[in-house]
């Protein structure tokens, strides 16, 4: 008796483009959430797994910068928004073959900074624009591709350092 075992596997890799960070903004009721996914190259200038003390320090410094959201973006103060949840992480996407420990493959790794901030707002309609000190904070940063959704529908923005803001007037 013979058995045939067919190993089914699906291979897929998330897109990853240096110089392009992703930002998702969702608005529901009085809550607004910002979710950033930014390639390591845009933040610390490298994407290999940090091994040297200097690189580890850079990563930690960057994570600390993300801890204070005002380094990344600002919302109008008259919207009375209060931060009520945040998560900052470095997603290390180690695609090594398990039997392959050669260091030269390390360059194929892609690190991604992930940061999510959730706000409760007293006057959410006052968020007529969002500014991004992000571009000044991280000099390696490229553009941000923004997906935005509220009860008014969804839209998108492309933000770059020369005009680091989006106009959300009438969209919330």
């Amino acid at each position, binding site marked *: 008796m013979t058995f045939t075992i067919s190993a089914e596997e*699906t291979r*897929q890799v*998330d897109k990853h483009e240096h110089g392009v960070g992703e930002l*998702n903004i*969702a*608005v*529901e009721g009085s*809550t607004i*959430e910002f*979710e950033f996914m930014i390639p390591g190259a845009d933040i610390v200038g490298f994407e290999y797994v940090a091994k040297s003390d200097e690189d580890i320090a850079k990563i930690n410094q960057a994570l600390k910068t993300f801890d204070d959201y005002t380094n990344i973006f600002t919302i109008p103060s008259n919207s009375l928004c209060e931060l009520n949840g945040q998560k900052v992480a470095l997603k290390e996407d180690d695609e090594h073959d398990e039997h392959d420990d050669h260091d030269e493959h390390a360059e194929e790794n892609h690190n991604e900074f992930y940061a999510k901030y959730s706000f409760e707002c007293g006057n959410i309609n006052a968020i007529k624009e969002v500014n991004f000190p992000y571009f000044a904070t991280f000099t390696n940063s490229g553009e941000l591709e923004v*997906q*935005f*959704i*509220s*009860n008014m*529908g*969804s*839209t*998108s923005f492309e933000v770059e350092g020369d005009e680091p803001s989006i106009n959300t007037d009438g969209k919330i």
Partner: protein
Amino acid sequence: MLLKLTFNSLYARLLTVGMTVFAISLSLMLYMSVEKLRTSAYTSFTDTISQTDLIVGARTSSVQLLLYSVFRIGNATNNITWESYEDVINKKEVAWSVPISLGDSHKGFRVMGTNSEFFKRYKYRGEQSIELEQGKNLDDLYDVIIGAGVAEKLNYSVGTPLIVSHGLQSFSDHDDQPFKVSGILAKTGTPVDNTVIVSLEAIEAIHVDWSTGAKIPGQITPVEEIRQMDLSPKNITAALIGVNSKLQIFQLQRWINEYPEESLSSILPGVALQELWRIVGVVENLLLGISVTVIFTTLIGMTAIIFSSLNERRREMAIWRAMGASPKVVIGLLMLEAFIISVMSIIVSTVMLFLTLYVLQPWIDNTYGILVNIEMLAVKDIYIFMLFIIAASLVSLIPAIRAYWFSINDGMTIKI
């Protein structure tokens, strides 16, 4: 006094001045209609689908998914299996969903298989729902509901029989299973107008005797037998999805995009519309550029006309000087002339624009599905007009200064 003098002078040259005003009016109208069409097209375009949070289809680009699922342009690369669809809609984030099955056609109009949720959930222009204008819902397996455009162009009414063709441009018909129009939808100005809607089961039914895109030779299952078969859909082309909370949307989107069993894509319709509009926007800017150029050309034309009339009018100016007008007054007169011409052009062009829009609006709506709003001038238009008047007065300074020199040199005696 000065105004009356200018008016009379313009009146004396009615024909040339009239032609100038007409030329400028036409170019201003061109600019305004391009602007109007541009904004109307954008609104019509973005109003095509609302309230839908995500569109799910096989792995493809967001623009392509939007084009085939909403605008019925182009084709899907793949369908998605019913199992995957169920996995997606069983997620707790999903509030409602509408499956869509495409691929067949009727006389050039796309046939879309869906269920009753479509009529409840598909919204356009904000909160607008699609409504039946005549007839009733899809009750029978072989019922179809047609959009207003289909009914009008093919002259169909409730009860008209029709045959669905296999594929989009093919000569093979599903003629063994004729359908019947059960309802006609009210006009929406969206691609729904040009869609033939059947049930998902009907799509399965007409493909019973088909295998991998071709009819199985000699096999014709009788309609009565098909009616008894299990016609639950095995695959669909795309699905419209609504979520419980907008805050969960990106999480769900990521889950769908990383769904391991099948390669799926999920897009936010508004995001894809923006992306598509950015592509179309190039043409839009081109049109705008052309109309701005036309306005400039006309301004230069106006200057040229004033210039060429200067020689003929040296006597007129000599008389003005004799009446006691200083050379500065001559400059003022010519600038006033340009001012009056531009104001008159603006009035004429606005009247012409509204008349044209009024006449063409139904045609544009019918042919292109773009509803041009005939509304009062926007603040932006007023700015443009003011800018134009200032530009016209400034440009007229060139001939005016020349006239100033003429009148200083000529005095009251003209040396030609």
